[in-house]
C-alpha cells in the first residue's frame, strides 16, 4: 500500500491539521508516513496545502507529483491540483465552496458539503474534519478509530476541549463517500 494525498484550501481552513492528523494515525498503525506542507509564511494570505504519504515501504520522497487522492477545500485548490491526480484517483471536494464540476472523467469525485455540515454541528471551523471523515471512510487506509485516538496528540493544548466536536465532524464525514 502506498497512498499519496494532497490536501489544499484557504489559509485558515485547517488544512495542515487535517494532514497531520492523518499522518499521525498512519504512524500509530506502524506504517511509514510523511507530511509535507507547502511552506513560506514569508508570503501571507492565499492558499495552503500539504502532502501526506502513507505506505508499507520506506517513503522515497515526501512530495507527490501524482497523488492518489486530493482533498480540496476551495476552487483555486481544485484548479491547481485536479490535473495532478493519478488516473483512477479520487477527488474529495468541498461542495459548500465549490460549485464547479470536475472536468476529468478518469477520477472518482466525492462531494462533501463540508461547511454546511460543520455549521450544522455548530462550528464552521471543523469543515476540515468533515472532509477527513469522508476520506477515511472511503479510502480505508487507517482505521477511523486510530484517527480519533490521534486527535489528542495533534490538537494543541488550547484545543483539547474540542476533541468531541472534532469526533462528531469526522463521523459526519462518513456519510459522504
Amino acid at each position, binding site marked *: 500500500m502506498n497512498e499519496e494525498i494532497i490536501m489544499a484550501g*484557504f489559509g485558515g481552513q485547517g488544512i495542515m491539521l487535517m494532514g497531520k492528523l492523518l499522518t499521525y494515525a498512519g504512524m500509530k498503525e506502524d506504517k511509514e508516513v510523511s507530511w509535507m506542507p507547502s511552506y513560506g509564511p514569508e508570503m501571507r*494570505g492565499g492558499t495552503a496545502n500539504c502532502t501526506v504519504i502513507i505506505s508499507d515501504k520506506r517513503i522515497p520522497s515526501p512530495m507527490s507529483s501524482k497523488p492518489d487522492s486530493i482533498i480540496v477545500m*476551495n*476552487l483555486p485548490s481544485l484548479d491547481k491540483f485536479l490535473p495532478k491526480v493519478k488516473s483512477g484517483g479520487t477527488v474529495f471536494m468541498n461542495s459548500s*465552496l465549490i460549485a464547479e464540476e470536475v472536468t476529468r472523467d478518469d477520477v472518482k469525485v466525492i462531494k462533501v458539503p463540508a461547511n454546511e455540515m460543520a455549521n450544522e454541528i455548530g462550528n464552521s471551523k471543523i469543515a476540515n474534519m468533515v472532509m477527513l471523515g469522508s476520506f477515511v471512510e472511503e479510502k480505508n487506509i487507517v482505521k477511523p478509530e486510530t484517527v480519533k485516538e490521534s486527535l489528542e496528540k495533534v490538537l494543541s493544548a488550547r484545543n483539547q476541549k474540542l476533541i468531541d466536536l472534532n469526533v462528531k465532524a469526522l463521523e459526519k464525514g462518513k456519510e459522504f463517500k
Partner: protein
Amino acid sequence: MEKEKSVVFNEERCKGCELCVPVCPVNIISMADDINSHGYHYAQVKEQDKCISCAMCATMCPDVVISVYKEE
C-alpha cells in the same frame, strides 16, 4: 465622473478586515454574507444615500478598496 454612488467598494480587493466598519460616522458599512473569489466576506454600503462622503472609511482601509465621491 458621473458616479451615482458616493462610496464605491472594489469588492474583489476587500479582505473583510472590518476596519472600515467602526469608523463610519453614520454606521452604514456592513459585511456581506457572500465571499469574494479570495474567500473573504467583503464590506458593502447598502444605504448610499446616507453616506456623507467623509472618506473616513477610505482613509482607514488598508487595501485601497474604497473610493469616495462628493457632489461638487
